[in-house]
């Protein structure tokens, strides 16, 4: 029973990712796409968590944490790119 619920949840998360992918592809603006990728990352965190319950293992907790950090950093990088056009700024413009 629990297994069925978990699998159903996984399918739903995947559908959410699919819908986010539609946003990534369609846009129309850049921030839309960046937010959609962020959403995909968050959905993946949840999905990995459920998979670790299904597989009954603790091995993927690091992956969840890393993904959380990376999704955040990635979104920041995109935002900065959208705002400034560059990611790493230098003090003296050459």
């Amino acid at each position: 029973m629990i297994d069925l619920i978990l699998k159903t949840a996984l399918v739903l998360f995947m559908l959410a990712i699919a819908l986010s992918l539609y946003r990534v592809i369609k846009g129309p603006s850049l921030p839309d796409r960046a937010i959609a990728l962020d959403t995909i990352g968050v959905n993946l965190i949840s999905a990995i968590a459920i998979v670790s319950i299904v597989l009954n293992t603790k091995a993927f907790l690091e992956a969840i944490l890393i993904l959380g950090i990376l999704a955040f950093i990635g979104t920041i990088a995109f935002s900065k790119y959208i705002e400034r056009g560059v990611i790493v700024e230098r003090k003296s413009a050459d």
Partner: protein
Amino acid sequence: MIVVLSIVLPFLAAALIPFIYSRFKKVHLGWFVLVVPVVLFSILATYIPRVANGEVFVKTFEWIPSFGINITTYLDGLSMIFSLLITGVGSLVILYSIFYLSTKESLHHFYCYLLLFMGAMLGVVLSDNLMVLYVFWELTSVSSFLLIAFWHHRKASRAGARKAMTITVSGGVAMLAGFLMLYVASGTFSIREIVANLDVVQSSAYFVPAMCLVLLGAFTKSAQFPFHIWLPDAMEAPTPVSAYLHSATMVKAGIYLVARTTPIFGGHEVWFWAVSGVGLLTLFWGSFNAVKQFDLKALLAYSTISQLGLIMCLFGLGSAALHSGYSTESVIYTQATFAALFHLINHSTFKGALFMMVGIVDHEVGTRDIRRLGGLMSLMPFTFTIAVIGSASMAGLPPFNGFLSKEMFFTATLKITELDLFSLNSIGVLFPIIAWVASIFTFIYCVIIVMRTFFGKIQPDRLEKPPHEAPFGMLISPYILIAFVVGIFIFPNVLGHYILSPAMASIYPMFPSVEDMTPHIAAWHGYINTELIMTAGVILLGVLLYRVLKKWRPIYQLIPPSFTLNALYERVITSSENVSGRATNRYMNGNLTYYFVYIYVFFVALLAGYMIYADAFSWNPSKDSVIEPYELVLVFVMIMAAVAIIFAKQRITVVLLNGVLGYSVAFFFVVFRAPDLALTQLVVESVTTALFLLSFKYLPKLKNEYISKSWRFAKITISIAVGATVTLIGLAVMNYDRFEPISKYFEDSYNLAGGQNIVNTILGDFRAFDTMLEVVVLFIAGLGIYTLIKLKAKKGDADVESK
């Protein structure tokens, strides 16, 4: 031992030349060089009596014994003739060159090349091993190339050298292939052993191909039709070189090869017709073309071609004796071979003298164009004597040695018509006729040499220097040669007995008696025979035709210049350059897309083609695990993302979609229980995305390129084919279960390596070598990026690469 020395000594001397040259500036370098051939000639001459008694001298040194390649020197009658010619004419030519070349020329180069050539040529004639023979053969080509282009500041010299090199080396490579076939057929590289096991070779399927390839090498080297075109162009070399290489020695290397391989191939119909037919054609064509030349050296070049054809033809006729083995009838035909060897020596004497004569004229007058020469008889009487004797001998007049060889040649051609073999009874009658016509032309050009140079009116205003007799030193060598021309006529049987009959024994090793094959040469038989009438006809018609030369000369204009063999050669060379250039430019067009197309098409054709050919594609879903619905949805997501990348309009969309793909892959790693991979994949994916974003600043916006429909279709087809190939191979590999996986071993990682994380123990312990090198890869990449960023040229700075 002495035989080996004669090969090594010239090379040794060549190596020493730079030291001698820098030490003794005042003495002409030629005097030192002269010692080498004179010493060798004297040593070899002491062997004559023992070789005449049938002794052979063999000495083997191991070179590459595992391949059967040994330096085996072999001195028999045939090698004796050639090595005496090489060292003898070599001495005379070097003596002549001392007076011909001034010390202002780069003599150290000249004599170094000449000694190289001499050593290589001795190596060719004294080697028993086919591979060693080939090595020396190519060395003669190379040194001849260097000598032709001795005055390398002249364009014609360079062109002539290139042409000679191209043609002779092409033939040499063909010959190498022939030698290798002989090796396959017989299992040995040694000529003596091949001759000893003739049955094996002659029954092999490689016999005829090997014969044709070896002949190709011989014909190119000896300037036989249609490969003779390099020889007239090689006349750009200094005259001593022309006299030595292009009349007496190198062009006879092909003759030597034919003579040496006659015991192997002779007696076969193809061999008979190829050698004698090509020889006869060359004889006619060379003499016919010599008449139209205005340059004395070109005339002599064509006459050399013609005479080489004569010798070749005689060797072909002589090989008929081998067809049915030894018998009293077949021995008659060996006399053609005897005539060939006899004329070989005669030709070297008179042609060497004639070349030296032309060199003297050129040296003292400044031109060798017969339209500008004339009336030199009274001014250069000694040179005139050389010209008359040399030309008369070449034309085949008594009392010179050319007469004897010409008579023997006519005898041989007449005899061959009686042979009921190789369909000779019908076409054979052509032999004496063509030979006779060619002799008439020979007579005409010999007359031209003498008459146009020494008779008529002198034209002082058209000469570069006031004409006067040559210095004494220059005349020594040609006089020694014409002494031989006369001497051989008077005592032909001395030569026949001591030099020629041992050589006959090496050409016909299976014939029991040498005495039968050595005819007694007599200048006057005491009766009038057909040959004598033919010679009389040659003289009569020759004089007649020379008198009316102006009338029939226009027939040479019948052949337009664009139809000559030379023009054909030029056209083949230039058009092959053009075609290959165009073909290369067509496929190497600098467009990366095309190169990818080649790679992928090749990949698909080879891999998919082989898999289909071997019927290796198989798909057996019975062992597959269950596919969960959420996996299916994610696969669908990935497919959509991947397809969307192709149609994305902005770079940033591409990067985002790529990120989606990367994260999805990480999720699959999770599902397939690979936590370490998932972690790494996530980090790497994020870093890659960030790097893409970093470089965007420097990239242009994505543009819609215009691509033609067919090209687009081709690209799509190739992409699908590559994808399908990889997928099908992946599926086929799934079913590969011939061996047990070795992962069971690693599962015991805690006991074996002290770690529970099996992936990490493999990376850090079991297979740490890979890890180390991958760290190195990352290190190199980092270093590379750092240098690319740091070492870029500043504005207006020179390019780093060109510093």
